[in-house]
């Protein structure tokens, strides 16, 4: 799979369709983000799999924003899984990136990873290699729903009380791009208080994920205290879908219901 992607990227360089390619590279056993500007560098190209599939994913789309802001005229290739493509689709809609300057090079996640992520769409539309893998419906959301009102409150207050306010969930999030973050507002969230007000801090962030979260799970992977953020945001996405028929990242021409004014809904 990797060889096909490398060939595809080389073609993009050769046809002058991109000036640089944002992907991952393994150097001395370490996998990290890498901006390829020369096809010769593709030697150590990595898909982000080391001990198990997709265990070394990085927020490439977020890195691309900083890059494209400084070089708005350049065209970039970028390595994408299903979730990365959904993130980019959202970033195009929110005018954070120019779609015409981004070339996605997509590959599917293996079934094993799709199941671990409970990913509804473990492949991008921009597949250059591999087969579309079957999407998985979340069981973790179901488990929490079955706890009952009291059980759910207990479950979340316990999880949120572990928070050390590292802001990792926000920092790593590909769709968090606000210049001023409400969670960093000293009047709303006083600095130096740990854990941050429970459950306000996390519920505010979750509410901000409505119509945005593309379910990549990087937040949960970045959480040092193991708060099941992905499950929380999965439910957020489910509510937005059932109430407004919208899932972030899937349709390019459809905007978030919280991004457009609409009719007053029936009570």
């Amino acid at each position, binding site marked *: 799979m990797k060889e096909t992607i490398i060939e595809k990227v080389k073609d993009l360089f050769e046809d002058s369709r991109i000036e640089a390619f944002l992907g991952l590279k393994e150097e001395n056993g370490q996998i990290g983000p890498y901006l390829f500007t020369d096809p010769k560098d593709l030697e150590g190209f990595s898909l982000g799999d080391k001990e198990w599939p997709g265990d070394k994913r990085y927020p490439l789309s977020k890195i691309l924003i900083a890059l494209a802001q400084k070089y708005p005229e350049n065209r970039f290739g970028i390595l994408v899984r299903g979730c990365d493509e959904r993130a980019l689709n959202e970033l195009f809609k929110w005018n954070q990136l120019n779609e015409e300057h981004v070339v996605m090079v997509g590959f599917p996640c293996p079934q094993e990873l799709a199941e671990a992520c409970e990913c509804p769409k473990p492949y991008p539309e921009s597949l250059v290699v591999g087969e579309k893998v079957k999407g998985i419906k979340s069981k973790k959301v179901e488990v929490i729903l079955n706890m009952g009102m009291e059980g759910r*409150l207990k479950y979340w207050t316990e999880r949120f009380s572990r928070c050390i306010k590292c802001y990792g969930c926000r920092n790593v999030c590909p769709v968090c791009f606000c210049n001023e973050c409400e969670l960093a507002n000293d009047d709303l969230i006083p600095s130096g208080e740990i854990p941050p007000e*429970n459950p306000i801090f996390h519920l505010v962030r979750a509410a901000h994920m*409505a119509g945005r979260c593309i379910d990549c799970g990087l937040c949960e992977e970045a959480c040092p205290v193991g708060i099941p953020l992905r499950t929380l945001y999965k*439910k957020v996405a489910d509510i937005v879908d059932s*109430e407004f028929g919208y899932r972030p990242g899937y349709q390019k021409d459809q905007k978030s219901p919280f991004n457009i*004014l*609409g009719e007053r809904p029936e009570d």
Partner: protein
Amino acid sequence: MTAKRIRFLKEFLSFSGIEPDRLRLEWVSSAEATRFVEVITDFIDQVKELGPSPLKAALAAQDLN
């Protein structure tokens, strides 16, 4: 927009373990004083019926651990 957010929040509060009936959206004009009183009184009754917020107890239980 607010109506949309409330629709979302009701479901979301329930998933977080907080009774969604503690949240209500009503449209009251500044000219509708009587209606304002009605709405508030009704909501106070509703919250009283629900009793104290379970959040306080849940957080207190957390501090004990």
